């Protein structure tokens, strides 16, 4: 059941009690989020149903296509900054021709998925948390459960599938835009010809960089949806609760993206 009764525990008496309460609450929240993920994955077997397919496509457009504009701007400028910063230093040694490789590898391995993850957490994650929270407050989730419609299958699964597909694609797109942005800076500011820039970029990057970056983005997509749905479903206290759920979703998604990103890099490159 997604609809939960408010549980009451007497307030802790001292600081040890407060720490204990915090540890228990955090552990319980993490456990519930994992269970939500497991249930959503189990519901993927229904994804080919007509209504689910339509909803998945709708979420792909809402979460993915509508984020293209902001991702284009952020990724292009990220590539431009990377090229400028590394190019200025490398020019001191006469090696500015190598900025193509530096930008390409940085974008594929780290900056592409990382920037895409942050943008989607702030835009799509917060929107999902606010929507779920409002649905809890206006008793729409309770109504679904009473109609024996599983909210995880009806709401979470389509968003999970949509974001698991769209985040890697958007990450790849942001890498392309970053490399293009870096190339423009290389040509106009550092005097690196376009052909030399691209030649360098493709020589240094490996298939592994692309796949690890896409894998990271895939994980980020899942993290964003599960964090948003978990906090949205846990909303209490009306409009204030919706605001809190949205804020917590953005903060925790950012933290999880950073931490998971580090461990994936360590797993594949150390």
């Amino acid at each position: 059941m997604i609809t939960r009764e408010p549980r009451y525990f007497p307030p802790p008496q001292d600081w040890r009690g407060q720490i204990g309460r915090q540890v228990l609450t955090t552990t319980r929240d993490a456990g519930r989020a994992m269970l939500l993920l497991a249930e959503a994955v189990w519901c993927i077997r229904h994804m080919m149903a007509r209504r689910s397919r339509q909803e998945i496509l709708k979420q792909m457009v809402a979460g993915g296509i509508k984020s293209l504009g902001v991702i284009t701007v952020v990724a292009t400028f990220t590539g431009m900054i990377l090229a400028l910063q590394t190019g200025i230093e490398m020019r001191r040694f006469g090696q500015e021709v190598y900025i193509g490789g530096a930008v390409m590898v940085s974008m594929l391995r780290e900056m592409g998925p990382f920037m895409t993850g942050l943008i989607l957490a702030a835009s799509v994650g917060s929107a999902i948390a606010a929507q779920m929270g409002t649905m809890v407050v206006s008793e729409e989730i309770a109504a679904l459960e009473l109609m024996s419609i599983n909210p995880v299958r009806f709401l979470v699964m389509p968003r999970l599938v949509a974001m698991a597909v769209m985040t890697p694609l958007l990450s790849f797109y942001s890498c392309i835009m970053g490399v293009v942005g870096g190339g423009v800076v290389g040509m106009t500011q550092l005097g690196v010809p376009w052909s030399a820039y691209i030649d360098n970029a493709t020589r240094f990057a490996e298939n592994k960089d692309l796949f690890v970056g896409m894998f990271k983005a895939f994980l980020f997509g899942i993290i964003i949806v599960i964090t948003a749905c978990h906090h949205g479903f846990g909303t209490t206290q009306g409009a204030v609760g919706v605001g809190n759920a949205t804020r917590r979703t953005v903060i925790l998604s950012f933290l999880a993206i950073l931490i998971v990103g580090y461990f994936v890099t360590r797993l594949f490159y150390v």
Partner: protein
Amino acid sequence: MIRFENVTKFLGGRPVLNGVTFEVRKGETLVVVGPSGTGKSVTLKHMVRLMTPDEGRVMVGGEVISEAAGERLERLREKFGVLFQGGALLEWLTVGENVALPLREKTDLSEEEIEERVTVNLKLVGLEGDIDKYPSEISGGMRKRVGLARAIVCKPEIILYDEPTSGLDPVSSRTIDQLIDSMRNELGVTSVVVTHDLHSALSIGSRIAMLTGGRIAELAEPAAFVQSSQEEVKLFLESQFITRRGEWERNMP
């Protein structure tokens, strides 16, 4: 049909229901009244196991719903249609799609059959012309009527109404009351209505239960209810300007 046996429920550390025992009979309309914060909606939520009692049990049709889970709970919940306070309509679906939702998700009916059922039910609540509108385009009273059409579209045995007339003008309130009455007369369903509107309660209820201080202060037919000697009931009647003989008698079913 529904039986509460010694149900106690604590919320925020204080008892909201305190050993409540009563029964809803098949085919009747039981109206639960009482001041705000006395556990009326909590009582309703126990009937469909959106809440679980801390003590005691709730039975539906001889089965203990307060301990049911999984498919058994789903099967028991299928007996119910619930009209929520704000209608609880999904905002991104049209009126027609909202009413069709349980049919599309739970039955194997063809699209033609679903459309027919939706039209019939919307006609019943007088909204057949608003099938393509979104919830944001209709009034509060209309939202409740759409919620009612959705609640009855799967032909439930029991309908629960949570504050069906709150926030509505007197004319819309009367329309909702008439709809609740017609549900019982035409469909023969058992109804439980939670409200603090005594005028409405007296005109639609087969019996009226008054909740106060976490217990049932009075449970009687309308005529006996207004004659109650309980102090809480007298106060509640007086607060809504209802005298022992009055206007309400003309509206009694």
